[in-house]
């Protein structure tokens, strides 16, 4: 992945957290495009319409959450309809270890980070992927 044509998708219902993520990503990758979604439903639309490379995904959201988002992508992948495989970083306030582990095993999920987000974790992950 080249830092010149990176497209991020932030799927997060909390406006404040979206703002913090966006600000952080803009600082790290000023040339990148950053798309925002307030819930999983908007997230799915943006995913299929705009093909982001990297997705920051919250789990609990109104209307549609991260679980359904991941289920849709997984089904698409299994049926060979999905054209690409994004890198998903789940950022969640879920605390139950078992749940977190299960999320980590999901299709396209590269990492599960607990809220509050420690930005250095995110920074080193992204550095590994983006040249």
């Amino acid at each position, binding site marked *: 992945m080249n830092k010149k044509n990176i497209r991020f998708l932030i799927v997060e*219902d*909390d*406006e*404040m*957290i979206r*703002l*913090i993520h966006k*600000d*952080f990503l803009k*600082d790290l990758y000023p040339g990148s495009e950053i798309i925002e979604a307030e819930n999983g439903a908007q997230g799915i639309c943006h995913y299929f319409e705009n093909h982001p490379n990297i997705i920051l995904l*919250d789990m*609990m959201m*109104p209307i549609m959450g991260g679980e359904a988002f991941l289920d849709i992508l997984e089904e698409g992948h299994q049926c060979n309809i999905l054209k690409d495989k994004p890198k998903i970083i789940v950022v*969640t*306030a879920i*605390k139950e270890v078992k749940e977190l582990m299960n999320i980590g095993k999901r299709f396209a999920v590269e990492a599960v980070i607990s*809220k*509050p*987000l*420690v*930005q250095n974790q995110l920074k080193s992950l992204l550095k590994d992927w983006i040249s």
Partner: protein
Amino acid sequence: MINLTLPKNDDFMAAPVFEIEKALNRIHNKKELLERVVDIFVKSLHERKDILENELNNENWETLGTIAHSIKGSSWTIGAQKLGNIAYEMEKAADLKELTRFRRLFQIFQTAAQEFIEFDKKF
């Protein structure tokens, strides 16, 4: 598991109200951004408080749990540790549909929310 003792304000005394330093660290010491972020947070506290009141009257446990979870996440993100801890307890109470416990926690939450707002005003 039923909690026989109702929570009190004191249970959450140890947690800091607003760890500004931590919050600033998280956003690379951008004071202006912090102000914007706190504004949005306070606005969302008011909104969510109203929604919680409504949903509590209708005992919509799923919604109550989701909102408590949201408050937990954003409170911890902004360094409002105490509020986040209370919201966490609210989330757990909503999962177990414990009305009395949730009501009490909601009262504590409202007090703590006010405390945060005052704290923020001072700094």
